[in-house]
């Protein structure tokens, strides 16, 4: 057990891509945690998808031994993701720390998640060390950015450190500052133990592995434990730390961060945010837990092959073991058969889950256009949550439809304020506040329907501000809206998977674009395929995919029957990417591409 005065726990937080994981690399290197041989770029991003996309998806804790001039310290570092979809990972990580390194790309300056994450850290009462990164870049403007960051935190610009996570410059001074400026944890080693479960993952061999932060007391291998919220009483089969190798230890004491393995195999039995204590030495009450992450968007996932439904269920269950934010419930579509309606934190999260299902579980999936969760007030006074457009009650059965709003915070260079405000206006935004963080940088806060923000807005914001504006948002209640359900009929039959809930003012344009887009995507068939977009019984757009006239190999093949059959067999394979909807063959990407209709 380590003397608490020799421990420092901190998260690295930043806007996406400002260099958190790269900075973690340098810290691992300079403290000797990894040999040069084991080192690779963003070594803590261990998932394939993280490495391919160059982003962090899951927070990762690691323990470092740092030799300071006055002796050795144990540093527990948590690298966090920067993308807004995963901001709940940041709050979880912060709850396990006394300090945070707020990293800011010196060539970009303060961006939306810089601000959002800085505020989160301050709310958690953490000591924040502001650090400029990428000072090696010619475009870096450290003096200006230091002013900006200092402004956000109410700090002296002199106290803003400067590093290059690429070259390692300044990282030594940063390690020193961590020891000096961050408070050591406190906690009585003899008190009944209290450890916060701030993350968990599922290991096929070992079952559920929890990441824990000890606040008081000790937990040793062999202890009989108690989870204070669920009441489970498993044994501590193993406790240890990640360096980043897995290193079992005899016990974890106050201030320490490590892992805990119990006999529990079912992830649902251990909740992230729960407090671990000893069954025979119970703490008085649990630590403040977490709010469960709430899905922001829902989309239907359907196996292309009907037989794969059970495999999809198993795969989703397994994924959920390491992704508490993923929710799903069975859904039946007349067009697509049996599948699951899944809830995601955002479009990136959705894309990642889908990609993992297809790659790691070898499934072939059709995804329907995402939708947010609406609420319908029923005529009988009740209220239902609507995760899928098909579930929206008919106008006769409801008195109102409420839609989720977010508080959107946009940071933009002052030159673009007008453009951004106009864009927000177009997306039904209402201004909350506007504030100059510096003469060049403006913070806009708007109340905007979530649906507007999630679909298309971000890309438009980026393109209209040449990439300079950034966005952060958080849920901000529900409000009544004038919403309708737009349906699509193929060949006269409604196709539920194409339905969308949409604001009345937008229904016409959306319907027309959707019909046009489907006409482009649906290949010509043996007969004309009429496409109609309708609200209720009113058809608002109409297109036709003309029947194809010729699809035959009308050539002389001599006696070569084999060749012709093989040619046809190859074409048959192409058909697999098609889904039969009634009598119409629809390419799988048509279902998701409905999403892109809104983009200019």
């Amino acid at each position, binding site marked *: 057990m380590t003397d608490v005065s020799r421990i420092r726990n901190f998260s690295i937080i930043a806007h996406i891509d400002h260099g958190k994981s790269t900075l973690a690399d340098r810290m691992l290197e300079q403290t000797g945690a990894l040999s040069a041989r084991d080192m690779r770029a963003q070594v803590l991003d261990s998932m394939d998808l993280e490495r391919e996309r160059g982003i962090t998806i899951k927070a990762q804790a690691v323990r470092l031994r740092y030799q300071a001039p006055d002796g050795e310290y144990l540093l527990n570092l948590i690298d966090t993701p920067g993308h807004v979809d995963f901001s709940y990972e940041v709050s979880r990580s912060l709850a396990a720390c006394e300090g945070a390194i707020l990293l800011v790309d010196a060539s970009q300056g303060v961006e939306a998640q810089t601000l959002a994450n800085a505020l989160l850290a301050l709310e958690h009462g953490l000591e924040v060390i502001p650090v400029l990164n990428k000072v090696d870049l010619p475009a870096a403007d450290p003096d200006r950015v230091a002013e900006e960051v200092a402004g956000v935190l109410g700090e002296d610009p002199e106290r803003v450190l400067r590093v290059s996570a690429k070259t390692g410059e300044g990282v030594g001074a940063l390690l020193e500052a961590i020891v000096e400026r961050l408070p050591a944890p406190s906690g009585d080693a003899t008190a009944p133990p209290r450890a916060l479960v701030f993350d968990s993952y599922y290991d096929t061999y070992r079952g559920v592995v929890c990441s824990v932060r000890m606040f008081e007391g000790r937990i040793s291998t062999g202890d009989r434990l108690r989870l204070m919220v669920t009441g489970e009483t498993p044994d501590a089969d193993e406790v240890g730390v990640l360096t980043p190798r897995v290193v079992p230890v005899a016990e974890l004491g106050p201030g320490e961060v490590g892992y805990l393995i119990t006999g529990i195999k079912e992830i649902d039995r251990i909740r992230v945010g729960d407090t671990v204590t000893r069954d025979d030495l119970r703490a008085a009450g649990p630590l403040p837990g977490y709010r469960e992450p709430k899905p922001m968007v829902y989309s239907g996932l359907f196996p292309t092959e009907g037989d794969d439904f059970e495999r999809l269920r198993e795969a989703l269950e397994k994924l959920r073991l390491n992704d508490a934010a993923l929710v799903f419930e069975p859904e039946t579509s007349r067009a697509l058969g049996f599948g699951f309606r899944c809830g995601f934190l955002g479009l990136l999260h959705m894309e990642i889950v889908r990609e993992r299902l297809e790659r790691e579980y070898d499934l072939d999936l059709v995804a329907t256009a995402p939708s947010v969760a609406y609420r319908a007030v029923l005529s009988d006074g009740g209220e239902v949550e609507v995760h899928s457009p098909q579930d929206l009650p008919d106008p006769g059965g409801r008195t109102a439809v409420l839609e989720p709003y977010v508080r959107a915070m946009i940071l933009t260079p002052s030159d673009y304020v007008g453009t951004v405000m106009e864009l927000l206006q177009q997306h039904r935004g209402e201004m909350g506040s506007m504030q100059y963080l510096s003469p060049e940088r403006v913070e806009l806060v708007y109340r905007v329907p979530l649906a507007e923000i999630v679909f298309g807005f971000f890309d438009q914001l980026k393109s209209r501000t040449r990439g300079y504006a950034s966005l952060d948002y958080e849920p901000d209640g529900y409000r009544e809206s004038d919403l309708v359900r737009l349906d699509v009929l193929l060949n006269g039959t409604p196709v539920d998977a194409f339905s969308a809930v949409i604001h009345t003012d937008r229904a016409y344009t959306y319907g027309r674009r959707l019909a046009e887009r489907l006409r482009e995507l649906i290949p010509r*068939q*043996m*007969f004309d395929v009429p496409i109609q977009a309708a609200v209720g019984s009113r058809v608002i757009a109409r297109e036709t995919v003309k029947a*194809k*006239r*010729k*699809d*035959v*190999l*009308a*050539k*002389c093949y*001599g*006696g*070569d*029957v*084999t060749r012709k*059959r093989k040619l*046809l*067999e190859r*074409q*048959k394979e192409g*058909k697999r990417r098609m889904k*039969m909807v009634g*009598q119409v063959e629809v390419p799988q990407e048509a279902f998701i591409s409905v999403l892109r209709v809104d983009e200019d």
Partner: protein
Amino acid sequence: MAAAEARPDAPDLADAAAAWRGAYVHIPFCRRVCPYCDFAVVAGAGEHRGRYVEAVLAEIGMAEPFGPLQAVAFGGGTPTQLAAADLVRILHALAERFGIDRGAEVSLEANPEDWDRPTAAALAAGGFTRVSLGAQSFDRAVLTDLGRLHRPDDTRRAVAEARDAGFAHVNVDLIFGSPAEDDRSWEGGVAAALACEIDHLSTYALTVERGTALSKAVAAGAPGPVADVQAARYEWAMTEAAAAGFVRYETSNSARPGSACAYNLLTWAQGEYEAFGTGAHRHRDGARAWNVRRLDRYLERVEAGRRPQSGSESLDAAGREQERLLLGLRRAAGAVPGRAGEALLASPWGRRLVEAGVLESRDGRLIVARPLLGDEVSRAVLALDLDG
């Protein structure tokens, strides 16, 4: 065998052909290679012709007993690049080895520019009964675009000379939908073909085959065939041919009563045939097999006393049943449903085809009523799982 005046699309004729036996002889030589062609051909190669004839004769000598034959076809390449006497020698070798029925069809492909009275007379006297002339078009600009060496009048003359020499059946091949063609040249071509003394008309949609000069040009941005245009041209030709007394009996083939091509009927009835020469495909004892495509390899193998076969394929019972339906449905007479047909009708694909009016069940037969969508049917047949 075809009864004298049988309708080309008669079901009993179509089905009877399953029991016939055929032989195919491939002659790979051409004056030059047409830009759209991907058959096993060689341009020029005059020095190899003598060796080739000897090799084919040797290959015939190596064949297992088979026959007697009801249909013989010489194709290419360009059979008429060989001397008539050589073609006749090969035909006699086939007759000696397998026997050829009296009244059998003995057909050859010919290019109009090679055809003349002495050739026609020698071939007719030697036993050939049918000639298929590669007219392709009756428009000079289109012929040039297709890389052809003859002129429209060569085809007219060749048909007449074939008739004069006593050929009982004369076909012309037309290609439609090539970039240089327009409605007028196509309509004029069909009329010109029908004005000749032919009893059979093959109309082929220009197909861009991989590896051909045409395919390279199209990939580089040159215009290629357009499916909708080809559909319109096809329909026009079928109407004209019907008005002239021709009956369409397969997707691309029409004939006057009594003039359906026996070798074609045999192929679509899944009948069996021997085959000789480069790249030739045979179908014997339920297995399909093919020869090496390259002339040099073919010559080497045969001259070393070895069979020139390079590959083969044996389908299981379900596969053969699917193949039977696949081939049979190309015919206007359609096919008896059998196991594959029943399965097709019961499948969602089959129901969709019926609903779209592409597939019909009529008089105990399955028939493709919209032949231009035939591949929709073929893919549905191939998608069946008859083992399950």
